């Protein structure tokens, strides 16, 4: 008999040859025994609940055409007061200073956020296999940091370290660290597991495995994530300025409170231009890296 005839035939097996099977159980099948009547009743009940919730919210907050119409005088005053925007040299100088301060807050916030958030991400990522108690502690800490909104962090820091950009940097750093810890740990967990196991099977320690196999694979996506966080920091630093945490937001707040609407217009234009420019730069850089970080986030 020739060798060809007794050559083994590949038998299709689910997944990779004898590799570890998926740990998660198969999704439960929907219960098909439920009758059509019950299903229809459930759907109707769900619709009633949704409609009730929306009505309750609309009535409770008093939104609607009427309230907008009542505010028409104020809106007219505000918009009318904005024209023409104040383009005096003095104001443009201070606007430029505010823009630069916002950029500084966002970059400093990114720096400290990454410094704190990326090590946390390494501890949290399941494939790094950090000690379980440390991973849980890191996850809890990161959740806490991002659950408190930047605005609240800013209020806390303004009341402790005082008005100014430093408070903004602390506020943004903490929130960014919490976000980065979560999102970066997801990027780390998404790397191809085969090279990670290969490195682990050489007898490498957990740290060595993380540094040599996990981080290099996630590097582009992590860089992209940092750029995206920078975009978010810019927007946040504009908002937290209202409570006195520096930057263009603080200048906006002052102009609004003092009814200087022409200044307000100039500042708004500057803010929009800055955010658009940073978005474009960040997006171009991220695209050039070929990274695949989704731009929709804050999923938790």
């Amino acid at each position, binding site marked *: *008999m*020739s*060798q060809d005839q*007794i*050559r*083994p*035939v*590949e*038998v*299709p*097996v689910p997944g*990779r*040859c*004898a*590799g*570890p*099977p*998926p*740990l998660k*159980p*198969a999704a439960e099948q929907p219960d098909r025994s439920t009758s059509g009547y019950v299903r229809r009743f459930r759907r109707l009940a769900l619709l009633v609940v949704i409609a009730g919730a929306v009505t309750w919210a609309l009535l409770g907050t008093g939104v609607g055409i009427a309230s907008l119409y009542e505010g028409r005088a104020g809106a007219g005053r505000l918009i009318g007061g904005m024209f023409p925007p104040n383009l005096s040299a003095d104001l443009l100088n201070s606007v430029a200073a505010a823009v630069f301060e916002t950029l500084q807050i966002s970059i400093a916030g990114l720096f400290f956020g990454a410094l704190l958030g990326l090590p946390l991400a390494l501890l949290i990522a399941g494939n790094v296999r950090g000690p379980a108690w440390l991973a849980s502690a890191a996850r809890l800490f990161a959740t806490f940091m991002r659950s408190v909104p930047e605005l609240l962090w800013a209020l806390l820091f303004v009341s402790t370290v005082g008005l100014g950009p430093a408070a903004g940097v602390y506020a943004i750093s903490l929130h960014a660290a919490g976000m980065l810890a979560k999102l970066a740990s997801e990027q780390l967990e998404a790397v*191809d597991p*085969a*090279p990670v*196991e*290969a*490195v682990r*099977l*050489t*007898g*490498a*320690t957990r740290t*060595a495995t993380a*540094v*040599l*196999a996990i981080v*290099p*694979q996630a*590097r*582009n996506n992590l860089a992209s994530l940092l750029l995206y966080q920078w975009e978010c920091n810019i927007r946040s630093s504009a908002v937290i300025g209202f409570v006195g945490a520096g930057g263009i937001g603080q200048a906006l707040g002052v102009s609004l409170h003092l009814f200087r609407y022409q200044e307000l217009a100039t500042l708004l234009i500057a803010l929009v231009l800055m955010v658009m420019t940073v978005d474009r730069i960040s997006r171009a850089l991220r695209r050039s890296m070929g990274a695949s970080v989704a731009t929709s986030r804050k999923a938790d």
Partner: protein
Amino acid sequence: MRVEVRDLIVQFPQRPDRALDGVDLTVEPGEQVALLGVSGSGKTTLLRALVGAVRPITGTVTVGGASVTGSREEQRRVRLRTGIIRQRDDLVVGMRAQTNAIIGTASTWGPVDWLQVLSGRVPTRYREPLTALATRHGIDSHLRARIEHLSGGQRQRIALVRALLPDPDLLLADEPTSGLDPVAGRTAVTALQTVPQATVIVSTHDIGVARRFPRVVALRAGRVIFDGPLPDDDDIAALYEPVGVL
């Protein structure tokens, strides 16, 4: 290194059949063995069990006197002396070929070595052995290339160099010829067989590859059904056809 497997049973969750069903195997130091069997016969699981990558239900695996199924420390001691080449390409993309090739030596790196590696270079003391090994396997001109720019055959050779650089006492190769053309496959097997003094265990579904080994262990459904030198073609037919193995 002597490899001893005793009554090894491995079952993965949610699989009805055992991946390994009472395997007994002894491989003497320096011996060269081919594991032969179809996909799903347990070859890969057995190789993975030898370095503690799968957790058995029962049974023991001892390699060079250290119990792989015992403490983590003993397991690590075995891994440090074992070179592994896997079926699937498992090099780290985004890194240079040379960085991939030296990964097996990471446990010996000091702070200076780490600095050199993180800056994309090879630790000084490994430069010469790496170049020598890469030259022997015809991949020296590609050491500075990024992994994603190498062909399948070139990657396989980098994986081979990675496995050989720490000077392992045990070499495990899972389907080392899969995805390679016949000439490259032949070269890969020869490279494994010419490592001095190493115990070599190679899994394959290819009788042509198995025939190049003095001892063949055939697996079916997680059991050893044949152990010894592979007989002639006619005898193989007589041996396997009635049980429908191959």
